[in-house]
């Protein structure tokens, strides 16, 4: 049986009178990589804020590990320890002028003894490759460094779920790859990862499960193959289909693809499809 770590049921949320979230029911699988796609203003960030109790739904429920989320101080503390959010703009997340202090904030709030906090900070800085920034003031860091420090400040709380709001925005290609590899690594170690992005190529090759949102609704949920095969959903949310998939379809229609192989999820798999076909053709001649 699949285990769901986060769940919402008929969740409605309004800012003043407009429904930002309209009866959202989603189930996030434990230990998986879940991606939310959708245009700006679709409600992704608002939904994320419900996942660790920052926002309280006007109607509907949120469940963590099958238990309904309660909004008293103790329950919220427990939820926020388990579900961390890395916000889009690192400058709004970093409140301290010192990297070490920033990273220690979460574990200190959890009331750990000093030695343990130090241990967690050490671990988080090491894991994000920011140990050398330890004594640097946050306002001297580059954008990529700030991003990594914000991630460290969440990891230091050892959450079971980490939510990333557009983690690769404004990053250069090298750092994009670094961050995504790091998220994969985190996921391998058992952390459930949820993220929002506009990068369909990355979503397609990286996600286990994708949700597509529009105007506060969930349009479709499914595996990357299922989502990107649905041209109706793609068109209505102005998503393009991933490059890999376009090439695959084109080559398939021309008969250059070995159909025995599964759908390619990345470049290497696509090349294999082509190479295998070429090999088969050549051996027939």
């Amino acid at each position, binding site marked *: 049986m699949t285990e769901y770590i986060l769940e919402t049921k008929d969740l409605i949320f309004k800012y003043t009178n407009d429904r930002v979230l309209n009866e959202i029911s989603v189930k996030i699988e434990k230990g998986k990589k879940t991606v939310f796609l959708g245009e700006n203003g679709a409600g992704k960030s608002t939904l994320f804020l419900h996942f660790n109790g920052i926002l309280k739904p006007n109607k509907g429920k949120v469940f963590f590990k099958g238990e309904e989320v309660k909004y008293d101080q103790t329950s919220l503390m427990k939820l926020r320890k388990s579900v961390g959010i890395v916000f889009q*703009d690192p400058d709004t997340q970093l409140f301290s*002028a010192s990297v070490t*202090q920033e990273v220690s904030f979460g574990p200190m709030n959890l009331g750990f003894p000093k030695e343990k906090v130090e241990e967690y900070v050490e671990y988080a800085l090491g894991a994000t490759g920011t140990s050398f920034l330890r004594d640097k003031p946050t*306002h001297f860091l580059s954008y990529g460094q700030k991003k990594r420090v914000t991630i460290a400040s969440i990891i230091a709380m050892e959450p079971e779920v980490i939510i990333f709001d557009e983690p690769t925005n404004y990053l250069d290609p090298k750092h994009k790859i670094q961050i995504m590899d790091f998220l994969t690594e985190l996921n391998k170690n058992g952390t459930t990862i949820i993220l929002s992005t506009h990068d369909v190529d990355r979503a397609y090759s990286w996600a286990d499960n994708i949700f597509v949102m529009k105007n506060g609704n969930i349009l479709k949920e499914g595996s990357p193959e299922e989502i990107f095969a649905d041209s109706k959903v793609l068109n209505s949310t102005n998503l393009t289909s991933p490059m890999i998939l376009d090439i695959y379809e084109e080559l398939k229609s021309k008969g250059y693809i070995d159909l025995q192989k599964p759908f390619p999820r990345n470049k290497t798999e696509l090349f294999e499809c082509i190479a295998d076909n070429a090999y088969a053709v050549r051996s027939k001649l």
Partner: protein
Amino acid sequence: MLIDKYAYYNRLLNVHPIEKFLYAILTLLLCLFLNSATISITIIILNSVILVYKAGIKADFYLKLLLIPVSFLFIGTATIAFNVITHQEKALLCFNIFNFNIGITQSSFIQAQNIFLKAFGSVSCLYFLALTTPMVDIVSVLRKLKFPELFLELMSLVYRLIFIFIKIAGRIHTSQSSRLGYYGIKNSFKSMGYLISSLFLLSYKKADDLYTALEARGYTGKLNVLEKQYKLSKKRIAFIMVFEISLIFLGVIK
């Protein structure tokens, strides 16, 4: 801001902030209360030597920093030095403006000079603290001295937000000037107005976002953070004490 950069990249960074704080504040107080030119000069020279040779602050930068308050001090002390003079024979310098004799007497000159040196000495003490001690450390010292938590948290948040503020203001300014926003006086005033009003709105939004981000990490009204550990040096504290006591002697003997 170079002055802030030095706070993190000086050679006294690893000295316990309490020692630096103690030195700067005690010296500052003595400079103010002993009220003597010799002592003020001693303090200015000693601070300069420590900052340039011990802390590794570039001498030309430090000189420029010292020059900033000089103009204020000159204007401020000049008004003390110049007085209406009744006995012209006692004056060192005397003008006649609108039937008033205005000039400097020996005593007013000495008074102005003392105040000038006193203020200059105090400024050099504060520079010492600002150039060698990061804000985070100053806050941690004040916390040990039992300053109210609210005050300290405001202090650290304001410090952090100043940099965001400057960055955003810079960006808005660039985007305005690239559209000729500062072409001519009329435009400049208008653009400056827009800049200020959007800064207000943005800072409100930033503050909101920051609060959300803090809340997401379990903020309950207190900014708990790990403070950096330093070692107190008995030798240095002894040196500071000897120095302060000898200053007192110097001041009292005179």
